[in-house]
């Protein structure tokens, strides 16, 4: 299991470098999809059940559909992937930086491998993260109301931004 977690952490690194090295948005979105899938695997390896499901569904089902829709707005005739020269240079620089950081920091501060444990002392009916999300609906109701109000405010912000008459954020030119 530790080897599997090592491979998944390496996949997280590779996906992050792929997003950060400034390719075209299509390829960066593919890198983000890879990071979300591999991160879902990491959370599963650490004993989660509900949080990885939410993670995967939100990032893959929600954000990627929206980003694919918006990539049509920023389309370019010749998209450049990771084989382009400047992107390759950024990939090399980021890989070098990450390697140096791991070499320097990990040997100094890491005394142990963070073990995989989800054994809370009490007797639980469900897994811990499911109990936590249930506790959010139980005792954290006002925070949920606040989050809902934030989403409602965001709806009006988006409507004002893209409305397109002279009153909104988008002026007629």
């Amino acid at each position, binding site marked *: 299991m530790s080897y599997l*977690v090592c491979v998944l952490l390496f996949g997280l*690194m590779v996906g992050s470098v792929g997003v950060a090295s400034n390719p075209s*948005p299509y390829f960066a979105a593919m890198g983000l999809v890879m990071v979300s899938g591999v991160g879902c695997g990491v959370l599963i390896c650490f004993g989660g059940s509900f949080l990885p499901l939410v993670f995967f569904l939100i990032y893959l089902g929600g954000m990627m559909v*929206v980003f694919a829709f918006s990539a049509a707005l920023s389309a370019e005739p010749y998209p450049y992937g990771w084989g382009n020269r400047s992107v390759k240079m950024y990939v090399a620089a980021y890989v070098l930086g990450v390697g140096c950081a791991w070499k320097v920091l990990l040997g100094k501060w890491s005394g*142990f491998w963070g073990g995989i444990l989800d054994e809370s002392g009490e007797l639980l009916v469900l897994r*811990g993260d499911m109990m936590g*999300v249930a506790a959010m609906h139980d005792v954290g109701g006002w925070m949920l109301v606040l989050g809902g109000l934030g989403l409602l405010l965001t709806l009006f912000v988006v409507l004002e931004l893209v409305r397109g008459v002279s009153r909104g954020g988008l002026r007629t030119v």
Partner: protein
Amino acid sequence: MTPIQMTFSTMFLLGLMGLTFHRTHLLSALLCLESMMLSLFLATSLWALQLSTINIATVPMLLLAFSACEASSGLALLVATARTHGSDHMQNLNLLQC
């Protein structure tokens, strides 16, 4: 620092550096912001899972809700930019006259 903490710290810093240094499209900047939020989600969920503190499992859910707010506002700005400037290149935003 255990390898998992090192990993999400490095992911956050990679997203931040990619957002800061060199961006051609506005959508690439938004994708870098998304990868930063993704690393924060991983960090808070692993906090809940590794330390078996079940009440902390509420934090990634609320973080996800607010990151949805952030992503939708950024995409609305992207749509507005594409409609006023014709494209979403960041260097077009420096022009005084569109």
